[in-house]
């Protein structure tokens, strides 16, 4: 527990330091922001995917709800995203509870595929509900200059403290859950649901709570994302590949169920994508994503339980 908090604090300090020294409107600091967002997203997923072993492939639903709730409230009612943020989180938590009615009892791949279908269903609804979301044309967050109240800034550098805040909240939530009572219960459910029930664990309630927390934090990440990119459309924020599956990939690459997993995953995936895109975009089309895919395959064949296992196993041996 102490060690986990130290890791979080160390990463947060490094990020803040980078935010302070890097050119505030430059590219490097934007990459730092993307890493923080990716790590937060992966950590949100890790709460259900890692602790409860429910491999959700539909987290884009919550991400999109967060992004759209705060953005639409801001556009239509001039509400600050700071106010839209908790509303989006609440809404996402509610949707996650509703979703769990049909998916609660699903196991393994069935759960994954049902959540995948749910994420896609949300994308379709967001596309079709033009009055509510602006439809497929997307919406732009109105730009009002640097403003803490409206949570928007001209350069990426100013976002670093905000995203560090998000990152710390999400990671601390994960740590508390993992080491707290709820964490014991989630792990018990993951291991043996019947046994968990007869030891007095309300498996349904614990799962709902874990799912709702994960959904709400994912929605918060979505709000931050919208405030950062200033433009969202249903294909961007409800994307199965670039949100749902990516969230899972970040956690899995690093190590499912561990605090460090999504952090390591984000530290590998984001810079890798950026480097490949920077150096290979001038070359033959498709070579950059091809190499990215090959590296993913290489890592999973080499380390099926994630990169974190490199450290933990070595420590285990000594």
């Amino acid at each position, binding site marked *: 527990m102490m060690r986990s908090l130290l890791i979080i604090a160390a990463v947060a300090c490094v990020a803040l330091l980078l935010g302070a020294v890097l*050119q505030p*409107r*430059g*590219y*490097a600091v*934007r*990459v730092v922001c*993307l890493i923080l967002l990716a790590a937060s997203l992966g950590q949100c997923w890790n709460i259900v995917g890692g602790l409860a072993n429910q491999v959700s492939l539909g987290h884009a639903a919550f991400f999109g709800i967060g992004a759209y709730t705060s953005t639409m409230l801001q556009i239509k009612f001039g509400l600050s995203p700071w106010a839209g943020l908790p509303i989006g989180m609440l809404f996402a938590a509610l949707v996650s509870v509703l979703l769990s009615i049909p998916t609660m009892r699903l196991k393994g791949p069935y759960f994954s595929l049902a959540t995948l279908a749910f994420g896609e269903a949300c994308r*379709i609804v967001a*596309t*079709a509900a*033009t009055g509510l979301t602006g*439809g*497929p*044309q*997307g919406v*732009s967050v*109105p*730009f009002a200059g640097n403003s803490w109240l409206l949570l928007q800034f*001209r*350069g*990426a550098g100013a976002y670093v403290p905000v995203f560090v805040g998000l990152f710390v909240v999400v990671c601390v939530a994960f740590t508390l859950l993992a080491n707290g009572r709820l964490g014991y219960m989630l792990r018990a459910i993951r291991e043996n649901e019947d046994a968990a029930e007869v030891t007095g664990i309300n498996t349904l309630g614990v799962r709902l709570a874990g799912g709702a927390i994960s959904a709400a934090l994912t929605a918060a990440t979505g709000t931050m994302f919208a405030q*950062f*990119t*200033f*433009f969202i*459309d249903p*294909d*961007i924020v409800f*994307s199965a590949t*670039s949100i749902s599956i990516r969230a899972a990939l970040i956690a899995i690459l690093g190590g499912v169920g561990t605090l460090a997993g999504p952090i390591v995953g984000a530290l590998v995936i984001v810079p890798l*994508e*950026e480097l490949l*895109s*920077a150096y*290979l*975009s*001038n070359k033959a*089309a*498709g070579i*950059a*994503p091809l190499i990215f895919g090959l590296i993913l395959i290489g890592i999973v064949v080499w380390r099926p339980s994630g990169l974190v296992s490199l450290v933990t196993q070595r420590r285990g041996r000594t």
Partner: protein
Amino acid sequence: MAALATLAASNAWSAEPVKIGILVPLSGPTAQFGNNIRNGVELALEDMKETGGLKALGADVELVYADVPAPNAAAAATQRLISQDGVVGIIGSFVSSITLAASEVTERAGVPMMTHSFADQITSRGYKFIFQVANKASLFGEKQLTYALDIAKRAGSPVSKIAILYEDTAYGTAQAKGLRDTANRLGIQIVVDESYPLNLTDASPLVNKLRASGADLVFPVSYFNDAILIIRTMRQQNLDIPTVGGAAGYIIPDFKKGLGDLVEGVYSIAPANYDALPAIAEKYKKKYGAFMPHEALMYGAAFQHMVKAIEVAQSRDPEKIRDAIAALRKCDGFSAGLPGGCTAFDANGLTSVAFPVFVQWRGDDIVTVYPPEVAKAPAYWRGKEVK
């Protein structure tokens, strides 16, 4: 001009090439269009070198590509072009959502971006650094209908009922809205108004509705895969309703390759057509083996406009280049191929000259048939020449 050249040559930085970022999807679902844009821009650069345009700058222009398969990657790639590569301007990016996401970065960074994306919002956010060389999608929708109605009227077969089939993307919905609003204004009955998910696996439900509706004219707004399915299914059911495509999938060489003779006589709205620029179009065809699609032409023109503006500004300062782009009216090179014959912009950054044209398939080519002032050949309506 000579004085300008000496001035440029005497500058210490003149050896360093001026970098322009090309932000386009080179992989992913719209890779084909990004590829066409790359071809167009490279040809436009060649063309400028041949006609001596670059000498005045005193430095070479270097193209820096960023592959953006999806809008999520747009912001970081744009920032990278600006801060790492030091580009002075950006050309891109075909897909409206990518352009919208990228222009949020260029606006804040104060770097000009020129695009041919259609979305209405692009130049209605009050941004200073974004320039749209083509008209807005809603205008395309409007003209798609008014042009068709006029041709039909001249052909002596008036239209009272129309069908709109469109993909539920930014491009499809915006264009359909223009069509719908115009039809309502003109009192034309819309008998089918259906959006469908991009990348259909089966077009029968759409065509079944179309057949049952008794429409006189159908406006499908779709990319290639869906266009192919819709046209084939229509032909299976012997539906020969005159078809007016909504650009995109309807005016690329693959459309003919895929459908063969079925495309003969199909209309489409287009932002520009290569037959306005025969010499360059011929060069393109020789080099890349197919006719020059409109995105190659439009982005080539945007690129040349930007380079010219850099020359005029005599500066690498993006802010000054931006002002030069806004002030410049360029009517030669690729720009001459646009309807209206020039690239120039209004206070919002939207084209102040261009207008949509109507093209029709003839053999392996698409021919501009409307409006009359730019038409290269008469239109055919149900096989009959329209006077």
